[in-house]
C-alpha cells in the first residue's frame, strides 16, 4: 500500500551475488558436454553442474525422479543444466548465453495421444505417472436400458498462473551453518524437505523463511523447491549469499502450469432425464516429471462426476508423461479440467433428451443421504435446486434466454446465457490430511499478546486476517492483540502446505483449537475466569509465565469421527466437506470479429459460514476473473514442448476492461467441523467459470465447442462448422 512491504527482490544481503540458470534448448536428448565459450571471464564465475551436488540430485517431493540439474539426459525444454553466479547482472546474462550445451537429440513425446500410444517411453515403463479406477454399480449393464447414449470428448489447455511477482529466492549456505533461504513461496516445509535431501543435511541445518509473496495460485507450491535448491547450491560453492529472481520470460517458459487435459464421456440416460450410467475417461498431460501430478489427477478424477447422483459410474484416469516442462499445481488442481468436460457434456445430454439444461440437472442433483461416484455419502444439507433458483433469479436467466433467442436472429453481435453447477472438495484429497497431521501452535506474552505459529503462508488470499480473527474470537480478544508469526521453519511447526482450499477450514480449525487450549491452560491453572476482560487475560498470561516459564499450546489434526477413505479401493469420504456452486455467465460475441465478452456474471455458492465477507468475495471475484481467462484468452502456444508466447504481450490475461460485473452471493450453511462453521473457498471459482461461459456461447450460437480457451480462431472454426 505504501511500498514498504518487502518482497524477495527488495531484499539484499552484503556481498550478495546473482544467480542464473542455463537450460536445455530442446525437449529430449543425451547431454554430451557443456562448453563455456565466448569472451567471458569464466574464472570470476561460480559454476555449478550436477557433479557439485552434495547429496541426492533430485527435487524431493512425492517421488525423487526430477533432477535438480540434468546430469546425463534432458527430458524437457528449459530443463536446468548449469548454474552461474556473478556480482554483475549484465555480465551474468552474457555468460548464460555463452554456455553451449552439446545435446544429442532423441525423439520426444509432445501430446497425450503419443504418450498413451507409447510412441516413445519417456518415463518409467509405460509413460504413466498414475492411474485411478472408480467403479460404482454396473456401467456395462446399463447401456441396454438407456433411452439415449450421449458421447463427447473435451479438452482444456495449459494455463499459466501469472502471479505478478515472478519466482525469486535468496540463499546463504555453508557446511557449518547449513542452508537458509528466503523466498516467494507457498509451502515452507516442501522447500525444507527438498533442501535437506539435496544437501544430505539434518533437518535442523535447513531453514526456510517466507517473504512477502506476490501471488501464488499454486505456481509457488512446488517450483520454489527447485529454485531454492539452485540458489543454495550456488551459495554453498561461492560462500556468498545468492539471489535468483526470474524475469517474466524465464518464469513463464520454465515453471509449472495447469495440466492440459482430455476427457471422454459416454452417458446413458432415460427418456425422462435420469442419468443411468456415466463412463468417463480423464487424462492429464503431466509433463516430464511426476511432481504433483498424481494428486492433481486424484482431485480431477473425483470431481469428474460432479454433484450428481448416478447409480453406475466408471472412471478411468491417468496422468501421462510428455517432454514438456512438468505441469503442476494451479488453483482448482485438476478439478477445473474435469468439471469443464462434465458441465459441457451435460448440456449435450440435455439437448439429446430434449430437456432444458437446468431441468436435466435438477433431476440428477445429489441430495443429502445419496452417494457420489466414489461412494461418499453426502451428509451435508446441500440444496442445489435452491441455489440454482437463486442464481437464475439474480441473473434473470429465463427472461434473458427467451429475449436473446429472439434478438439474436437479427443481430451480428449474439448474446447468450449459460450456467454450471459443481462442487469442490475442501482440504487434501482422501487421506492426505491424515498423512500430513498438521500442527499449529499458539503462544502468549506476559503482556497478553497472542502469537499464532503456523507454516500457512499469506499469499494475498487473507491467511493472516482470517487466523487473527479466528484466534481473537476464540480467546475473546481484540484483533490487535493477536499477531501471526512469519512462516519460518525455525520458528513455526509444520501446518502443511498452503494449498487445496485448506488454510481456513483445516489449519484455521487448528488455530481455533490451539487458542481454546491456551485458554484452558489459563483457566485450569486458576489464573483466569470466564467472562474476562483483555486486561484480565494479560494478567493471567503474566502470572502463568512467571510460574511455568512458557505459555504455549499446540493442536494437531485428527480426522473427524466417521470420515473414512480407503486408499486401496480408492473409495470413501474423499473430502471432509464440499463447497457447492451455481455460476451463471452472460456473453456477447461478435460474429464478424469472433471476439467474446463476458457481460455479466453471477456466482452463488455455499462455503459454510463466511468468516470475512470482503475477503471471501475477493476470493470469488479473483477466481472468476482467472476462470474467464482460462475460458477465453489464456492460450499457451507450444512448439516442440516449449511455450513460445512466454510474455505478457502475447499471453493474455483479463484486464480491467475485460471483466464483467462479478456478482457474488453466499448461501450460509455452517459446517460444524470448520472454524466458526467455515469450509474451504479458494479454488471453487476456477471450477465453474469456464463451463458456464462456454455453455453461454453455445446458447448464443448453437455451436458445440468442446475445448478451451475459446480464442477467436476456435470460435470462428466452430461457427463455420455449425453453419456447415
Amino acid at each position: 500500500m505504501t511500498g514498504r512491504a518487502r518482497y524477495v527482490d527488495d531484499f539484499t544481503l552484503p556481498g550478495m551475488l546473482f544467480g542464473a540458470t542455463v537450460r536445455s534448448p530442446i525437449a529430449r536428448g543425451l547431454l554430451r558436454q557443456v562448453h563455456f565459450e565466448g569472451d567471458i571471464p569464466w574464472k570470476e564465475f561460480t559454476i555449478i553442474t550436477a557433479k557439485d551436488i552434495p547429496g541426492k540430485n533430485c527435487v524431493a517431493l512425492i517421488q525423487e525422479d526430477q533432477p535438480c540439474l540434468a546430469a546425463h539426459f534432458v527430458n524437457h525444454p528449459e530443463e536446468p543444466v548449469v548454474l552461474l553466479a556473478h556480482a554483475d547482472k549484465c555480465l551474468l546474462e552474457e555468460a548464460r548465453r555463452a554456455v553451449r550445451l552439446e545435446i544429442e537429440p532423441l525423439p520426444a513425446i509432445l501430446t497425450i495421444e503419443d504418450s498413451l500410444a507409447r510412441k516413445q517411453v519417456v518415463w518409467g515403463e509405460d509413460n504413466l505417472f498414475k492411474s485411478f479406477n472408480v467403479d460404482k454399480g454396473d456401467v456395462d449393464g446399463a447401456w441396454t436400458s438407456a433411452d439415449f447414449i450421449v458421447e463427447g470428448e473435451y479438452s482444456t489447455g495449459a494455463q499459466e498462473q501469472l502471479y505478478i511477482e515472478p519466482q525469486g529466492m535468496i540463499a546463504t549456505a555453508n557446511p557449518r551453518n547449513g542452508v537458509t533461504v528466503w523466498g516467494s513461496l507457498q509451502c515452507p516445509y516442501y522447500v525444507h524437505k527438498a533442501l535437506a535431501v539435496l544437501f544430505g543435511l539434518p533437518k535442523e541445518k535447513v531453514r526456510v523463511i517466507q517473504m512477502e509473496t506476490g501471488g501464488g495460485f499454486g505456481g509457488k507450491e512446488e517450483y520454489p523447491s527447485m529454485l531454492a535448491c539452485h540458489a543454495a547450491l550456488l551459495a554453498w560453492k561461492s560462500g556468498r549469499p545468492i539471489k535468483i529472481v526470474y524475469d517474466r520470460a524465464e518464469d513463464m517458459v520454465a515453471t509449472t502450469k495447469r495440466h492440459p487435459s482430455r476427457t471422454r464421456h459416454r452417458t446413458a440416460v432415460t427418456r425422462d432425464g435420469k442419468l443411468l450410467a456415466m463412463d468417463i475417461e480423464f487424462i492429464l498431460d503431466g509433463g516430464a516429471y511426476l511432481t504433483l501430478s498424481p494428486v492433481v489427477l486424484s482431485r480431477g478424477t473425483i470431481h469428474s462426476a460432479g454433484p450428481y447422483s448416478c447409480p453406475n459410474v466408471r472412471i478411468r484416469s491417468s496422468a501421462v508423461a510428455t517432454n514438456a516442462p512438468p505441469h503442476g499445481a494451479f488453483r482448482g488442481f485438476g478439478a477445473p479440467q474435469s468439471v469443464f468436460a462434465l458441465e459441457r457434456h451435460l448440456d449435450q445430454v440435455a439437448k439429446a433428451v430434449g430437456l432444458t439444461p437446468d431441468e436435466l440437472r435438477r433431476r440428477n442433483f445429489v441430495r443429502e443421504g445419496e452417494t457420489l461416484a466414489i461412494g461418499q455419502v453426502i451428509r451435508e444439507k446441500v440444496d442445489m435446486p435452491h441455489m440454482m433458483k437463486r442464481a437464475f433469479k439474480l441473473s434473470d436467466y429465463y427472461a434473458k434466454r427467451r429475449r436473446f433467442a429472439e434478438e439474436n436472429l437479427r443481430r451480428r453481435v449474439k448474446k447468450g446465457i449459460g450456467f454450471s453447477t459443481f462442487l469442490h472438495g475442501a482440504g487434501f484429497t482422501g487421506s492426505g490430511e491424515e498423512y500430513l497431521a498438521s500442527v499449529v501452535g499458539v503462544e502468549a506474552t506476559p503482556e497478553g499478546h497472542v502469537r499464532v505459529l503456523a507454516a500457512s503462508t499469506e499469499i494475498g488470499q487473507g491467511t493472516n486476517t482470517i487466523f487473527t480473527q479466528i484466534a481473537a474470537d476464540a480467546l475473546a480478544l481484540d484483533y490487535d492483540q493477536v499477531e501471526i508469526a512469519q512462516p519460518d521453519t525455525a520458528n513455526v511447526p509444520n501446518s502443511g502446505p498452503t494449498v487445496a482450499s485448506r488454510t481456513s477450514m483445516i489449519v484455521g480449525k487448528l488455530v481455533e483449537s490451539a487458542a481454546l487450549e491456551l485458554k484452558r491452560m489459563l483457566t485450569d491453572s486458576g489464573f483466569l475466569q470466564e467472562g474476562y476482560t483483555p486486561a484480565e487475560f494479560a494478567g493471567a498470561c503474566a502470572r502463568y509465565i512467571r510460574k511455568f516459564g512458557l505459555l504455549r499450546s499446540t493442536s494437531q489434526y485428527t480426522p473427524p469421527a466417521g470420515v473414512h477413505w480407503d486408499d486401496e479401493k480408492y473409495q470413501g469420504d474423499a473430502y471432509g466437506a464440499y463447497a457447492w456452486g451455481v455460476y451463471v455467465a452472460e456473453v456477447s460475441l461478435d460474429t464478424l470479429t469472433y471476439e467474446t465478452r463476458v457481460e455479466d456474471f453471477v456466482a452463488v455458492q455455499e462455503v459454510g459460514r463466511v468468516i470475512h465477507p470482503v475477503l471471501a468475495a475477493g476470493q470469488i471475484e479473483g477466481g472468476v476473473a482467472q476462470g474467464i481467462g482460462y475460458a477465453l484468452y489464456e492460450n499457451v502456444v507450444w512448439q516442440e514442448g516449449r511455450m513460445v508466447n512466454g510474455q505478457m504481450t502475447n499471453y493474455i490475461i483479463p484486464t480491467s476492461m475485460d471483466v464483467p460485473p462479478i456478482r457474488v452471493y453466499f448461501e450460509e450453511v455452517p459446517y460444524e467441523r470448520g472454524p466458526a462453521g467455515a469450509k474451504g473457498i479458494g479454488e471453487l471459482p476456477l471450477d465453474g467459470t469456464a463451463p458456464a461461459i462456454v455453455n453461454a456461447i453455445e446458447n448464443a450460437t448453437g455451436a458445440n465447442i468442446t475445448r478451451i480457451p475459446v480464442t477467436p480462431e476456435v470460435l470462428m472454426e466452430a461457427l463455420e462448422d455449425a453453419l456447415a
Partner: protein
Amino acid sequence: MRLPETPQETRIQCTVNGRAARFHVHPMARLLDVLREQLKLTGTKEGCGEGECGACSIELNGKLVNSCLVPALHAEGTTIRTVEGVADGERLHAVQEAFIACGGAQCGICTPGMILAAVNLVERHPRPNEAEIREGLSGNLCRCTGYIKIFAAIVRVCQKTGSNQ
C-alpha cells in the same frame, strides 16, 4: 544484455517525491532500476519488464508511465512520484485508505502501481464514470482481485471527496 561501453555514465538530476535526487548512471539504464537500486525506492515493482503489467507505474511530470520503459536520461529535470510519495508521512492518501477499506489489495505486488494509476485517475477525473475507471486502470494488471474491489475503492474515494466539496 551488457550495455555498450560508451556513452559514459551521466549525471542526472530530478525531483523524486518532493526531494532533489542526483545519480550517476548509464543514460539508457531503466528508470525502474535507478529508483530501486540507487534510490532504494523498492516500492516500485517489476512484473514483466516490457510495459505490459504496470507494476512499475510511476508519475513522471504528472503522467503515469511504466518506469521499466523509461531510460534514466529521460528523467533529467523531471518531477517523479513513486508509491513512497503518495501518503503524507504516516497519513495515508484517500485512495490508499479506500483500497484497505474495500479489499482492493490482495497479494500487494500490483498495488503500488495500481495506487499510482488510481491516484492519477482521480486527480484527472474527480468523478469518473465506470468506463473512465476501467480505462484508467487498464495498464495495470492484477491477478488476485478480478479488479472488482479496486473499482469499488475508486468509487468510494470519489463519493467521499464529492461529499466534502
